[in-house]
Each structure stands twice: as C-alpha cells, then as structure tokens.
C-alpha cells in the first residue's frame, strides 16, 4: 500500500528517468558532435570562413586524392598484420594456458601483463628496443651472429609498416588471449575424452571440437580488436610518426594532420565521416559472419 502511494511515475517512466542523465550527456558530447562533423564535412574553410560546398570534399577524397587510398591501404595492413599475428599468438597462448595444470593463476597474471601497459608506453618501449644505435634488439641479434650491422628498424625503406603492426600485436595479444581462454573454459572436458577414446589426435580434436565451439569467441575478440586497431593513433604517432617518408601514414594520422597541421577542417571532417563509415562496415561485416545465436 505504502509503496503504491509514493509511485507517482509509472515503472516505464521511472526507468526512462534513470537513463535520462546519461542520454543528455551523450547527446551533448556524442550526438551533437556527430551532427556537427557531418555538417562540417560539406564545408570548405579556406580563409577561415566556412562555405557550403556540398559533396565536393568527398569527391576530391575519393577520386582526386591518391594519399587517401594509400593511407587507407596502410590502415588495412596495420589491422590485418597486427591483429592477424596477435590472434595466432593469442590462440596458441590461450590453448597452452588451458593445458597446464600447475601455476595456473600466476601464469595468467603474467600473460595478461602487457595489457596493463599504456599503449603509448608500449610504443616508447619498443622504440627504445628497436633503436638503431643503442637498441637491445640489434645488440642481441648481432651477438647471436644473425646480424652483422645494426638495422634501423623504424626507418627501413620497406617493411616499417610490418614492424609497426607487430608492436600493435604485442599490445593486443593479452585481450584476445583472455577472451579465447574464457571461451575454451566453457568447452566440456568430456568431449575431448570421448574423442581420445575414439582415437582422435590432438590436431583432429582441435578441428572437430575446439575450433567450432570457440568460433563465437574468436569472432568477437577479432572484431573488437580489429575495430580498435583501425582507430589506434598513439602507437603510430609515437613510434614512426608516419615515417619514414609517408610509408606508415594511416587514416588516423591523415585526419590528425589535416585538422591540426594543415588546418583544413572541412576536408578533415569528411575524412572523419569516412572513417566512421568504414568502422561501421567492419562491424557489419563481422556481425553478418557471426550467426545471431552466437551473439547472446
């Protein structure tokens, strides 16, 4: 009785009231900027004044700007090479962690460790390791007799992109590993025993049992880390700064340079909108691969 008297609002209205503060906040710092960036993308701001120019920014980006396509390709390379190797290593480490019987807790903590390192710091660590004159990697490789002369890892004429993406991989292995390990732990052990009795080898067991049951975890972990790799700014900005030349410039650095170095805000806004569309397409691509029942 008492409770009903106090309830002026219906349950649904009350629920909406609870999310209202977040909604207003988000409207201010996400929805409004999204609309604003879309409007800016149709404008030209040469000479400090914004003038409406319709789709001209988009037209010049897509048809007259070879840099856009080159940097887009670099972004794709970064995502594919970086997340590709992070996934392979993450899977192998997760399988190993799931196999051992002793020191499980401590092993998991150590395997997670790199996740805790801020991305910028990871990038600076590797910048120091890969340093051409005083770096540890060159020293170790020369001691081992693999290299004769120090290699300038971060200013190679080709292949710097590959090295950059591998530094990204180092930072995202732990996340993928955690998700895959959680997935592996849901697979009942009996399945493997039955398969062993039936004479299945390790590789067969992986193919018949592990891989199909792990599929949802694989797809979600790869999707999330791919989306995050695509937007990563701090690693490329500190590790190579887009260099040598323009060989590691990507869409993120292009937006940054356009907006804050060349101060062409309209053009940069159009690039931003294209980046959102590409991110959405990436999500869409993964979601269509994942059967809907796996999502819940």
């Amino acid at each position, binding site marked *: 009785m008492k409770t009903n008297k106090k309830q002026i609002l219906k349950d649904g209205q009350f629920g909406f009231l609870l999310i209202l503060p977040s909604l207003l906040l988000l409207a201010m710092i996400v929805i409004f900027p999204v609309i604003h960036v879309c409007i800016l993308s149709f404008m030209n701001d040469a000479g400090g004044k914004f003038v409406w120019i319709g789709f001209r920014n988009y037209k010049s980006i897509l048809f007259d700007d070879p840099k856009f396509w080159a940097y887009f390709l670099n972004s794709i390379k970064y995502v594919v090479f970086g997340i590709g190797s992070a996934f392979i290593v993450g899977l192998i480490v997760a399988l190993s962690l799931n196999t051992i019987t002793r020191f499980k807790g401590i092993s998991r903590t*150590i395997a997670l460790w790199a996740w805790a390192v801020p991305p910028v710091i990871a990038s600076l660590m590797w910048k120091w390791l890969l340093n051409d004159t005083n770096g540890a990697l060159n020293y170790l490789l020369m001691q081992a007799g693999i290299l004769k002369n120090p290699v300038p890892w971060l200013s190679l004429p080709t292949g710097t992109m590959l090295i950059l993406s591998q530094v990204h991989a180092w930072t995202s292995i732990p996340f993928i590993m955690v998700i895959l390990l959680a997935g592996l732990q849901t697979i009942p052990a009996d399945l493997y025993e039955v398969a062993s009795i039936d004479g299945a080898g390790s590789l067969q067991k992986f193919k018949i049992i592990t891989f199909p049951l792990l599929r949802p975890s694989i797809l979600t972990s790869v999707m999330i880390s791919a989306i995050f790799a695509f937007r990563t700014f701090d690693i490329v900005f500190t590790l190579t700064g887009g260099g040598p030349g323009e060989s590691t410039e990507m869409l993120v650095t292009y937006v940054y340079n356009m907006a804050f170095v060349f101060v062409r805000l309209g053009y940069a806004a159009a690039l931003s909108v294209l980046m959102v569309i590409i991110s959405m397409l990436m999500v869409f691509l993964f979601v269509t691969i994942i059967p809907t029942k796996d999502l819940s």
Partner: protein
Amino acid sequence: MKIRLNRAKTRSKAAAVIVLIVYFVFNLFPIYWIFVTSLKTDAEVYTPQPTFIPKHPTLENYKTIYTTRPYMRYTTNTILIAIGSTMSCIAFGAIAAYGFSRFKFAGNKGLRYIFLASRVFPPISLIIPIFMMIGWLKLYDTIIAQIIVNTYMWLPFFIWINISFFDTIPKEIDQAAQIDGCTRMQSFFRIAFPLALPGIAASSIITFLGTWNEFLYNLILGPTPRAKNLSVGASDFIADMFVSWNQMAAGAIIACIPAFIFVIFFQRYIVTGLTSGSVKG
C-alpha cells in the same frame, strides 16, 4: 591404451610449458628492459654494449624528471582525470544500466544500441567538433574538459556491460524490497547496487585504466602542463632533439604503476570486465 593417452597428455603439457616460457619472455622483456633503463646512468645507456643488469643502479632519473619537468603536475592531472571520469561513469552509468535492465519503456532496445554505436565511432572522427565545442565552453586546456571527453569514451562501455550484470540479479529481490516498503530508488541503492558491485568494480577498473592511458584527446585538448597527463608527458621525451632514454624510461614506469597494481591485485575483475564486455559486444 591408457598409458598412450597419458603419454600424449604429458607431451602436450610439455609443449604448453615451452610455449608459455617463450611468450613470457617476449611479453615481459620489453617491460624489464624499460625498467632497467630507468635505473641506468647516462654513460651506461649510451654504450654500444647494453648491460642487462645495471652496474650502478640509481634513482637519479626519477628525481630528474620530477625536478626538471612538471611531472608532479602530470601525475596529479592523470590521477584527477582518471578518478573524475570513473566517478562520473559510475554516477551516470550505474543508474542508467539499472534503468535499462529493469524497466520496460518505449525505445529501451533502440537506445541501448545508440549507446553501443557511439562506442564504434573512432575517437579521432569526433575530434574536430569536440575541439570546437570545448573552445566554445572555454574549457580548453582544463581537467574538466578531459573528464568530459573520457566520460564520452567510457560511459557507453560502462552502461553496456553493467546492463548484463544487473540482468544476472533476480528481479524478485528488488520486488521483495519494495513490498517491504522501499521506494524504487532505495531498492536500487540498498539492494541492487551492492549486489552488482563486482560488476561495477570490474567496469570501473577498466574505465579507470582506459582513462589513465588516454592519449589523443589529451594531446589535442591539453597542450600545456595544466591538463597534460602521463602518457603525453612520456611521449614528450621523444620530441626532444636529444632523446634522454633513461629519463623517458623513468616516466614510462611511473605511467605503468597503477595498471601493474591492478593486474596483480584485481586480475579477476579485469578478466570479468573484458570478457563480459565482449560477449555482448
């Protein structure tokens, strides 16, 4: 038959141990290397023959960065921004997640996806309008601006994963509380919130660390020591003409400290946060 199975098991275990040892070296060596570099003297850093254990370990680099650079300021800024953003995510996010999880209203599902979609936007794509907005609000180069942008980046994540934590708490418990005379708000604060605390803790830790590590918006919206954080502060070293690697290393270690503490003591929460965030992501 049994012996053969056991032998196969031992072999795969041995392989797993070898894989893990190799991975641990690969995982930990860069961190170890930056740590020993932070303890080295200039002479020991700039030799062609690096030492793996510092010959004359010293805390001089830490002292130098705190006395010759505004590192004290960066440290307090980072702490304030991380705590402020996490608090605002808890204040806004916990009740919103509860509202989404418990009450049916028009647009419940649609709004959930709007929140989720805002996390799909690459932060760089909103940097121009947010840069302009922060300018209009006269908040450029302030800690408040940093807290606002970090809330934008983490609130959707926070709400999204806490919806699933509230979903696991049976509705009957808060209904029972309401029959006992609690208002809906009281039943949230006294019953649901404490029960959801492990989930709130997990998402708060991830939000805290994510904010602590933020780089792009701090670089652009906080160009002077007034609002600069440790991530951007550490990257300043490589912009110098002569890069002081051992001082940079000391700055890097300082920036890593909270995350290392969390990984050691709250690993379970981090794993919960990461997995539940992605299962429904």
